[in-house]
């Protein structure tokens, strides 16, 4: 019961904070580019506006156009509920096992890919194809880094991993742990379509991955899509942050602990987001066929992490 309560708190907080995270990231980028920037609250305004606009449906497009955005949104919400962001407690029947989390992420990925194919336009299919290729090539890195992190704990349950890492600092700074987290960062960038894998602010269809799949959606459909993808970013970034700094999470329902956890989470998340945005200023999007190289690199890191924790560690 208490666990459920904590999870609800986590979902509410994460969902509420997500547009702010995007706002902060855009603002940081704008400032570093010498611009003023629309302010950190802009994403809230965008979503409100999108909900007030009429969605369009092209004659001949199927129900996927309407269903996919909602599927993406709900799957992202599930991920937010499962990943330990604010609390390490989890609903006993649904432990946040990482393989489950990953496969729920994949549901959202598939929904997006089908949406891209649905309209039958050239760009949609292109984006869908690239999106799925990257998703497929990311998979090994994801599972491998999970594996590396799970070895010292002997469980693939996220909250256990985070708790164990929080318990003794030496776990965090072992080479294995570091490698795994670095690999996971690359994964997060690829999964959430950030630079250098995908450019979230591009207007050129030919360079798009994520954008070109949602070209066909407008109004609330677009709103669901945007929020859904943002929530993915929140969940994954929050997960990485909590693996790197596994402190301050609430495991009980004491108001004070929960408050501390919420504040700690918000601060950690926003700082991490700002750092990512700042790093992106220094990066250019790599060519599509350089992406596999990047992923191979991160896979090797994760693999060395596993080997290290079995043999050298």
């Amino acid at each position, binding site marked *: 019961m208490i666990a459920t309560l904590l999870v609800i708190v986590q979902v509410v907080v994460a969902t509420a904070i997500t547009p702010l995270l995007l706002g902060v990231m855009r603002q940081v980028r704008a400032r570093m*580019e010498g611009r003023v920037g629309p302010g950190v609250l802009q994403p809230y305004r*965008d979503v409100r506006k999108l909900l007030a*606009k009429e969605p369009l449906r092209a004659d001949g497009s199927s129900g996927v156009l309407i269903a996919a955005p909602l599927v993406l949104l709900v799957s992202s919400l599930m991920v937010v509920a499962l990943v330990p962001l604010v609390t390490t407690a989890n609903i006993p029947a649904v432990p946040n096992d990482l393989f489950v989390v990953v496969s729920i992420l994949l549901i959202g990925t598939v929904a997006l890919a089908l949406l891209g194919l649905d309209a039958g336009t050239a760009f949609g299919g292109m984006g869908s194809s690239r999106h799925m290729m990257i998703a497929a090539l990311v998979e090994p890195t994801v599972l491998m880094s999970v594996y590396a992190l799970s070895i010292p704990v002997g469980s693939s349950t996220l909250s256990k991993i985070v708790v164990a890492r929080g318990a003794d600092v030496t776990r965090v700074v072992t080479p294995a742990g570091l490698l795994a987290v670095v690999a996971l960062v690359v994964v997060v960038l690829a999964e959430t379509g950030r630079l250098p894998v995908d450019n979230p602010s591009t207007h050129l*269809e030919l360079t798009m991955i994520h954008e070109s799949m949602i070209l066909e959606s407008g109004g609330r459909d677009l709103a669901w899509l945007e929020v859904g993808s943002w929530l993915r970013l929140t969940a994954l970034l929050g997960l990485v942050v909590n693996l790197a700094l596994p402190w301050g999470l609430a495991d009980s329902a004491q108001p004070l602990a929960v408050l501390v956890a919420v504040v700690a989470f918000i601060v950690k998340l926003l700082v991490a987001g700002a750092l990512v945005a700042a790093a992106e*200023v220094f990066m250019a999007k790599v060519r599509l066929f350089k992406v596999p190289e990047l992923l191979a690199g991160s896979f090797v890191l994760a693999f060395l992490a596993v080997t290290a924790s079995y043999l050298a560690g």
Partner: protein
Amino acid sequence: MNPFHLLKLITRAGRFAEPAPPAPAADAEHPMPQSLRGSVQVRHVDTGSCNGCEIEIGAAFGGVYDVERYGARLVASPRHADVLAVTGVVTHNMVEPLLRTVEATPRPRLVIAIGDCAHDCGLFAGAYGVAGSVSDFVDVDLEVPGCPPRPEAIVEALRRVTGR
């Protein structure tokens, strides 16, 4: 480029956006849709421009005039757009695309005709390829005069919509 060098450049350049001029007064007889306040996605449609206006639009969205600070953003698809920024005379080949683009934009939507050509075909009036001005085909909500219009003018027009 070496990141440290870039960082040095960034710090030296600092913020080079112009200070914001006072917000334009909302005019009473053409009220802007309430739902677009604060956030406006712009899709640019070139129906046969000399690209003078494009340069100015580029400037308006660039770092110096930075219309994004008022909540306006360029987007890639009219499905995402609230405002269609139409530039240039409407050539015969662009009539249908223009109409389709307007059709493809979800309501509430605005059409801003940017530049004299979009307003009344400018110097291209009567040229053989010209089908007419924008208002001949779609109803225009705002017009930005000038050949090409100054970025400030474009920024002001968009600020009227966002109301910031």
